[in-house]
């Protein structure tokens, strides 16, 4: 498995929408490299014949009756938002200017 470097961390931080300072990128790259190294053995543990488990207790999908249940009012839904306008979430520009 590939090691993780500073450029990787910068790229991942952009994907995860977390701004990081140069100092933070340096530190995080060092820490993550140690962690990634320590989990390397995982990829060698199981052969191709072992199925993956995504959920610990087997469950099958069930359907409920298609009836309207409890819903939040828009006041409730917006009550924790940093900004709202006329019953909607208010956000900065979604598209870049250019």
């Amino acid at each position, binding site marked *: *498995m*590939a090691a*993780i470097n500073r450029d*990787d*961390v910068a790229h*991942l*931080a*952009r*994907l*995860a*929408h*977390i*701004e*990081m300072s140069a100092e*933070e990128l340096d530190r*995080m790259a060092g*820490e*993550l490299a*140690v*962690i*990634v190294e*320590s*989990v*390397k*053995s*995982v*990829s060698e*543990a*199981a052969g191709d014949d*072992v*199925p*993956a*488990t*995504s*959920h*610990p*207790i087997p*469950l099958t999908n069930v359907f*409920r009756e298609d009836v309207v249940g409890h819903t*939040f009012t828009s006041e*409730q*839904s917006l*009550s*924790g*938002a*940093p*900004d709202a306008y006329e019953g909607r*979430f208010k*956000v*900065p*520009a*979604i*598209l*870049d*200017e250019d």
Partner: protein
Amino acid sequence: MTENNVLIRLSAAALARKLAAGEVTSVEVTQAYLDRIAAVDGGPRGVHAFLHVNTEEALAVAAEVDAIRAAGGAPAAELHELAGVPIAVKDLIVTIGQPTTAGSKILEGWHSPYDATVVKRLRDAKMPILGKTNLDEFAMGSSTEHSAYGPTRNPWDLDRIPGGSGGGSAAAVAAFEAPLALGTDTGGSIRQPGAVTGTVGVKPTYGSVSRYGAIAMASSLDQIGPVSRTVLDSALLHQVIGGHDPHDSTSLPDPLEDLVAAARLGNVDGMKIGIIKELHGEGYQAGVENRFNESLELLKQAGAEIVEVSCPNFKYALGAYYLIMPSEASSNLAKFDGVRYGLRVLPKDAPLTIERVMGATRAAGFGDEVKRRIILGTYALSAGYYDAYYGSAQKVRTLIQRDFEAAFAQADVLISPTAPTTAFKLGEKLNDPLAMYLNDVATIPANMAGVPGLSLPGGLADEDGLPVGIQLLAPARQDARLYRVGAVLESLLEAQWGGPLLDKAPELATSVVEPAETLETQEAK
């Protein structure tokens, strides 16, 4: 000891009996706990188990229970057994009327418009909620030092960690600030704090207690469960919160077993108890190992057969966990985007786009450990790495389940130390994430396989006099076995100690109830 000091040291079961018999009122009990919180929780050397104290509402619920009891008749007879017994709730679980922060700046001041199902069940049982307890941010940590609101201190030694992520709930119960608390356990966050604070904590079978309203970290691992001072008390609380919930799509449809009866039965005669070869010995503190061996001896004397089982794939559990958990967390935490909840931070310069607002908000709102796990999870899920990391980790999960299946073919219950060491010093492992992660080595396998686990106090380590935890594990849906064995071991150990382990904990300096014993006078001595 003052009368209140006697009251707050009673178990929840004993309080429930006294309340039902009319020997004490819920207002008296609740006020005694609120006084205790005021006395030991605040200040620079306070326990700091609570992020929010819910005084008014708790007393109102207590008064309501007292009024119903006083009026008598059917409503009084129909009260839940734990009605009027107060409880603390980990601040990862949402509550109407109190803030929920998840220990993060990104949710500072946020109020949920709904109650978690477990909270609704506490309200239905009329249990006064004392407040919300401290935790590592978004439950990410093993020491509660990653809380954005400062660490919780271990009541046994205020310079040591109370475990994590549920250090607040465990410390509150250990410091007699609450008789009961709710926790959440993703990799040991109920059991490991229980171990290092000398309290009891249970991670139920995955899906057997609703997770609706628990802010998700890793959805395939997270589980809400009880925190208490006795095994029976955990069973009583588990019975309140457990059972199917249509609001949680992973909730098991099974009816709840009678866990309280199992705790009261307490019989291990003829049971097979398996020592997990891989979960003790090398890497475990000598004092932990000694207490563990003592517990085995007691169980043997009580009629259990001790066998050794091997779970060879457990050596991969920690690594696989640190791929699955961050992967799921990175996805779950994407919702904190500065739009729908809590914090919004604007970048210092133009352009003011939503992408840049998200980046600035998450940079300012998340702490280091949360950022580390989000980046690690994003990495493990990236194209090109997904199969090698997340995919492999999911296969390891299958291997761990197979190990458990083989072990449970040989034993009814498995046993191990809960944590490899006793409580370490605050700050000791803060700058070494990997060393911190190793604390969870014995608790993680249960989350990976969805099986239930219980930690109970096993005594004090010889080298440092700090609590050691004993972990019991049972097959999925067999939580009752944990209570059955746990109750036996607890009573044998307490007979040996001459009372509960917490009786050996040092008295905490109090700042209100006994003003003569303030921190300053303590230090002057």
